[in-house]
Structure formats: C-alpha cells, structure tokens
C-alpha cells in the first residue's frame, strides 16, 4: 500500500492517518472471508434455482464495489455531515419500507422487499444505521440542552420504524433495532428501574407476539420443541457443525451445505464451520470481537455524547446481528433469518453495513484537535 507522508494534507492522506487502520484491516479480513465462504456455500443453492453455479458469487462481487465506495465516502464525513445524511435518508427509507409493506412482493409471507430495476432491495436494512445516528443526536442534544424533547423524538422515531418492521413482519430485525435503541437509552443514563421496566415490556411484547402472530408462534414452538415442526435448516446446520469438527472437512468437501437451502445467507456460519472447522469459526468470532473492543476503546475517552451513543448503537447492530446469526445456526436462539455482517450473500445487507461501517470508521477517527483522546 502506498504510504502517505504525515505532512501531506490531501483528503486521502488525512483520511489514512485519522482512520482506525487496524479496524479497517479487520474489516478487510471479514470481506475476504465472505467472498471465500459465499463461493463455497452458494453454488449448490444457485444450481437448485437453475442458475449458473457462480451466479451469487458474481452478484456479491458486483455489490461489493458500491459497498466499499459507500464505506469510504461515509467514513470521510464529519459528524455533522453524518447527521445530515441520516436526516435526509431516513424519511426516504421509511417511505420505502411502507411501499414494501403495501405494494411489495410477498416472499414466504413477508413483505420486506421493493423491486428497483430488477434489483430487490430490503429498505429496513438501511433504517438501522440511519436510526442509530439520528437517535444518538436527539438524545445527546436532550442531555446538553434541557428542555429539548430529544428522548420523546427518539422514542417516536423508534416506534415508527419498529412498527413498520413488525408489519413486514421481520421479528429478527425488530429485535436488533430494539436492542440498539435500548443500548442508547441504557448509556444515556436512564435509571435502572426504567430499564428494568423496558425489559419487562419487551418480554411482554414478545409474549404477545407469540400469542397473536402465527408466524412467531411457529418459530418459537419449533425452537422450544424441535420435534414440533419443520426445522429442517437448523437440523442440517447442527449436522454441519458436527461434521466439521475442529479442523473442518476442507474447502468444497462439505456435504451438509449441499442440502442447506439458505447456506449462502442465513446459515453461512454453518458452512464455515463444516468446511473450515471450529478453528476458523473461532477466528471469525475473534475478528468480530476485535472490531467491537477496538472501537469501544477508541471512543472510550470521547467527551461527545453523540459520538459515544451513535458508535454504541452501530456496534450493537454489528455485534448483535453476528450473534443472532451464529446463535440461530447453533440453535441457541430461535431461527431468525439474519445475515452475518459483511460475510453473508445479500446486496441490501452488504450496502447497509457499508453505511454502518463507514459511519463507525468516521466516528472512531482520530480527532484532529487531539483534545479529547490519544490514539490507542
């Protein structure tokens, strides 16, 4: 890689010296692993759909270009620009989500997608990073300026987005969004009693969903009692872990992946474990954990509440989504259908993380003033 002298004051050079290069490297590792794993996991699925074997791999590579572009562009932004972008993009995202619910095609009983020039986009994926930034700003503003109704506005925005997600219905994503918002509330100093109340409310909400939404009832029943119904994918996924063992079967020697319908999307972690073994799975977990710990330490001394809250929500999105993906494939959680960040096949997920990671890099940049913290 080209080295920029520290005296060079061009945008690219400033960016290179301010950015968290270790996180950037870790992200690169994840993306490369993603390409390898999609190449291994997707050909059987492509063949089942009558497509050329490397169809999904090509599509994924094509989506990587705008994703990297977005990531770079967003990582250049100042905090104020980030907030302005989110404020502009949020209404459009909400509108697209509503469009998907009322006019979009139904896939497996859920209306989450809109078609755009033959491309299927899932707008709710984009709602998450924008929400993280707007909500962080609102809460920070409320803390700074008593009288500003930041909490109320943040709650209102949260309710709008989560209602749309529940209408789709997309329970997994609603869960991630609720945790992102919950983490911001937690950090912003909400009394423990209120937080306990919110958790109780969440549990009641889940219970109501279990009682009144057949979709959720069946998911949870299948989790609690695997014999209750068709949890074919989870059974196959567990077999994949057993088959993989510690060292894995080796690339393209996996058998279970051949019969796992969503191997390249919601069960790519199982493919990783089957072919590359537990050792690789632990490596991937270590990379995710590294990114989280590293980012936390970069903002730890930051005095700006906005930066702390926005970064936290983005990290929760990133970390929780990886946890839910892994947990589902190991039957630690009910099957949720969630992508593994930066690894699973899927254009919307990739682009959304392009924005989220770009924002994360922007927020964890070394501050020029040097006033707030030193580089770690």
């Amino acid at each position: 890689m080209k080295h920029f002298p520290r005296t060079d004051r061009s945008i690219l050079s400033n960016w290179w010296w301010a950015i968290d290069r270790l996180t950037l490297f870790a992200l690169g590792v994840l993306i490369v692993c993603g390409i390898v794993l999609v190449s291994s996991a997707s050909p059987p699925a492509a063949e089942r759909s009558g497509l050329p074997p490397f169809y999904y791999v090509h599509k994924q590579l094509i989506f990587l270009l705008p994703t990297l572009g977005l990531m770079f562009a967003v990582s250049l932004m100042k905090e104020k620009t980030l907030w302005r972008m989110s404020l502009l993009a949020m209404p459009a995202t909400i509108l697209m989500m509503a469009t998907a619910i009322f006019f979009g095609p139904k896939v497996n009983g859920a209306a989450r997608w809109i078609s755009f020039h033959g491309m299927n986009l899932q707008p709710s994926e984009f709602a998450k990073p924008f929400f993280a930034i707007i909500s962080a700003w609102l809460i920070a503003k409320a803390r700074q300026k008593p009288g500003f109704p930041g909490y109320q506005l943040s709650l209102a925005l949260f309710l709008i987005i989560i209602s749309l997600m529940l209408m789709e219905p997309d329970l997994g994503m609603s869960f991630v969004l609720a945790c992102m918002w919950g983490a911001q509330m937690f950090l912003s100093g909400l009394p423990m009693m209120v937080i306990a109340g919110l958790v109780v409310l969440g549990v009641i909400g889940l219970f109501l969903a279990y009682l009144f939404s057949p979709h959720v009832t069946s998911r949870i029943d299948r989790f609690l009692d695997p014999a209750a119904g068709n949890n074919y994918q989870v059974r196959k996924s567990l077999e994949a872990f057993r088959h993989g063992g510690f060292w894995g079967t080796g690339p393209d020697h996996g058998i279970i992946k051949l019969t796992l319908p969503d191997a390249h999307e919601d069960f790519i972690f199982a493919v990783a474990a089957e072919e590359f073994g537990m050792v690789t799975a632990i490596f991937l977990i270590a990379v995710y954990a590294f990114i989280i710990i590293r980012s936390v330490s970069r903002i730890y001394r930051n005095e700006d509440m906005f930066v702390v809250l926005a970064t936290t929500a983005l990290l929760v999105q990133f970390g929780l989504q990886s946890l839910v993906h892994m947990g589902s494939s190991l039957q630690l959680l009910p099957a949720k259908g969630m992508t593994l960040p930066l690894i699973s096949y899927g254009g919307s997920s990739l682009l959304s993380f392009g924005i989220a990671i770009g924002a994360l890099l922007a927020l964890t940049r070394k501050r020029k003033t040097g006033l707030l913290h030193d580089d770690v």
Partner: protein
Amino acid sequence: MAFDIFHRHKLTISGTQAQALEMARLRLIWVGMLMMMGYLAIILRMGDLCLLHHKSTAMLMGSGAPAETERPLRASIVDRNGNILAVSLRMASVYADARMVHDPAKLAQELAALLPKQNEADLFKRLSSGKAFVWIQRFITPKQEYAINALGDPAIHFQEEQRRIYPDANLAAQVVGYTDVDSNGIAGIEKFFNKRLAAGGKPLRLTLDVRVQHIMRQDLAAAIKTFHALDGTGLVMDVNTGQIIAMVSLPDFDPNHIGEATNNEKFNRATLADYEMGSTFKTFSIAAGLNSGKVHLSSVFDASHPLHIDQFYIHDFDAKDRPLTIPEIYIYSSNIGTAKMAESLGPDYIRDFYQKLGFMQQAPIEVPERATPLYPSPWREVNTMTAAFGHGIAVSPLHLVRAASAIVNGGILLKPTLVMPDNPDVPPQGTRVISAATSEKMRRLLELVVASGTGAYAWVKGYDVGGKTGTADKNKNGRYENHANISSFLGVFPIWHPRYVVLALLDDPQGTKATHGFSTGGYTAAPVVGDVIARMGPMYGIKPRMYITRDSIEKSMKPYLKEYKEGQALASVSTDH
C-alpha cells in the same frame, strides 16, 4: 443553534455532563461485555458440537451405523379404492471415498458398465477428485448393489435409503404433495400428515378416486388447450359427505422429478388460489334472499336501468330493460336484479350469510396450501351489491364447491375432506345454513339454467344436471381487464337427489370459431363439467332418467318466465356475465 452539539469548542463540559459521560462509559463497558459473553456462549456451544459430538463423513453417511434401517418405511398413500398414489421403497445409494481410490480410470469403467445412467468420463472426474465423499448414484437396484459390492473396491460404500415413488406421476400431484430427498413431507398431504406417514404402518386412504381424477384432468387439459387458457382447476365433491372425489390443478408436475417442477406447476389452484368468481355467486345471494323469507321466486326487481352507486355503475351483460322475477334474474344472470335484491335484504344480510357459508375464513382441508379469502373490510353498501354477483370478494374453488354443496344438499354446510373417515357409517356433522325448502327452490333454479339458459353445454341427457355459469373479468393488480376472464361452471347432479358438485374453472380462455369468439363460462367450462358427468355417472351407478326433457323443466317454471315459448331456449350460452 440547533446543531450546536457538533461545535465542541463552544461546549463547556459542566459537572453534570461529565458525570453523565462517566456513567455512559461504565455502561458502555457493560454492553461490550454482554456481547463478548454472547460470543463466548457461541464458542462453548461449538465446542460441544464440533468436538464432543463430532461425526466423520462415514458416520454421517450411515455406513456402520444403519440409522436409515431403523426408521420405519414411510406409509403409502392410496385413493378411495386402494390404488397407490405414493409408496416408499427401500433402496441403496452408492458413494465413494475418493481419497481411497487407487485406479480411478479402471473403477470408473467398471461402474459405468453397471450403471447405465452414469457416464464414464464424469465418474472418472468424481473418483479422481480426492474428496472424502462423492455420490456415485442415489437409489440403485438390488442387482446393481450386488454387482457393485462384488467389485470389492474398499473406496465404495453403500447407504440404505428409502425413496418415495409416485406411480401416477402428475395425476394428483398438488394434492398428494411430495417429500424432500430425506422423505420428509414438504407439500400437500405428504406435509399435512408427515408425522402419521413417517411413523409407517397402514396406508393413508384418501377420498380421491383416481378414475374421476383422471377424467377431470383429461377434460380440463383438453379445454385449456382448445381455448388457449393460461391454467385451470377442477373439483368433484360429494355433497352429502364433504368428500373430495377429484381435485385437479393445471399445469401440474411429476413429483418423481420435483427438481424440474416450477412454482406455477406446484401451485394448487383448487385450494390456494383466490378468484373473484362472478355469476356463480348469484347462487348464494339468491339463496340468501329466498331463505330470508323476504324474497320469493315471484319477487320482481327492476332491471331496466344500470345501477349507479357511489362512483360505480352496475350493468347487465344482456340487458332485458324490464323488471325481472327471481328465476329470470338467475337465468339471464342479471347483475342489476341481483344487486337490487341484495340491497333489499339490508346492508349486513349478505355479508352475514357469506360468513355462514365460510367465505370469510380458510376452508378446512387436509393440505397446508389453503387460501384465505379476500373480502372488503369495512363492508359498505356497495360491497353488498357487488358481492351479490361475485365481485369484490375472492374465494378459492374449494370454498365455492363447499358452499354449493350446502345449497343443494338440503341446506347443511359440511367440512370438506380429502381423507376417508375411519367409520363410514357415522354421518358427517355440519351446520344448517338454509332451510330444506330454500334448497329445493335453488335446485329448480339450477336445473333451469342448464335446461334453458347459459348452462346448456353441461346438459347430459338423462343425468339431470343443474348448474350456474360464471364469467368474471380478471382482476390484475386491482384493475379489471376487459378481455381476460375467469370462466367457470358449477354443476350439480343428479339435481333432484344431488350427489356430486362438479366445478371447472379456466383462467383467461380465448374464444374460438366454434364458440363465435365467446370465452364465457357457458362455452368453455360447461362442456368440461358435462363431459365429466357423462363419464363418471355410469361409473357410480347413477341411473339415467330419460323422460326428463328441457321442455318439461321449463314448463314447471312457466309462471315466472315472461319470455317462455315452447321449444325455445330462454337465454343463449353466450349471454352470461
């Protein structure tokens, strides 16, 4: 000053804010720790699976551990007469550990000689791949298994598997459904009764009759071809027991080669598709009217002018421009007359009656592919009027035959079923929806439509057929298409002691020279129903009554028919909408 928080240098960190930040930092550590604990749980769980429960490829494929033989052979599915629709056979599959192959060229040659489906070059490629596991072939015959075993190659292994066979291929594909490679039911009866079938034992006996199923499929396919329709569906239901004798959805597929089937082919139109049925629904609104006691066969409703309500106009396809009696409304299929009659019953009467007929919920049936009807909510006055002639409400063909059975069988709504009851002597339980007297009047009306109206092509000499045509403009994305129809015919026979309801429905049929360009239900679907009845009647030992003529039927309704002339049909086959 709204965006001031970004101007850090203007910000003075007061004591409380510093405190707030301290708390945020502390809690940030908690959030981070929670996530790390999550990752730790993942690693522990993986250790359990990957290390403590590790399975080698050989163990996974069951060599040495004959897991498959312990599993009972999946139960068969048979029709009402015991003809096999689905059966499982034990078969061996052969695979190789390519790492153990010494001479792939020789082995490929030997295997290719024994397995005619395999190509030698292809086998060679797989055998020299060096992979721990490659399939040679799934499901081989016992002879092949013996011969391959005799090769004595240590790289070759067998796995005992069971394979599901569907001897009748396409015949009842969507109803019977299919299984995945591991014999788990994933559609149709196979899915609905997966547990019962997987446990093995006695065959599951369906109510279908493969003979009638075949007749319906053949006639429907011929009609689709003749009229260049997109697709079609047909049903035969026993009106006294609710048993489904035939259920056909075309295009269909061969469940023995499920990989080649398209979603369009797998789609069971009889149970999973919602259609706006059009005029066949007049059967139900008029039954509602007659059953209310407010409307009689002699009641007259003025159909001289198109009806204007809100921004809608209701027209008649073959306008008579005069007041019509109920039998006239029915045989001329007058939308205006039906709408006015429905209006006279009050705003909720039709809706409540449709609810009683089961048009507002899924029809109970033993396949998972069930359609939820579409109906207006809230239900306004205009909905009453359009629903009376079958627009603005969409139900599945199964809903239609179930409700029609209740109209003709004396008034009892039954639960449709695909599975033979354990004890055939127990009479099926149902709920009364109309009186026996109303049911009788409806039979007279249905009879008249075939004898002298739009259903003439379903007339089968001696079999005493009743019925109603339906031709609905196809609704595509909320817009009605003028030149695309859903054309159907709902038939009942024998009409005086009804035993079967027969429905044929075609999506977007095109008129031909023989039909003078018309694509109405009377021209396209009625002949299918007529032919099915003519072929299945003798099979079921129904005695023809040759003395019944079209004229004798007309005469019996003479008081209500203004245009009655001896020896002349009242309505022509084309005039139905």
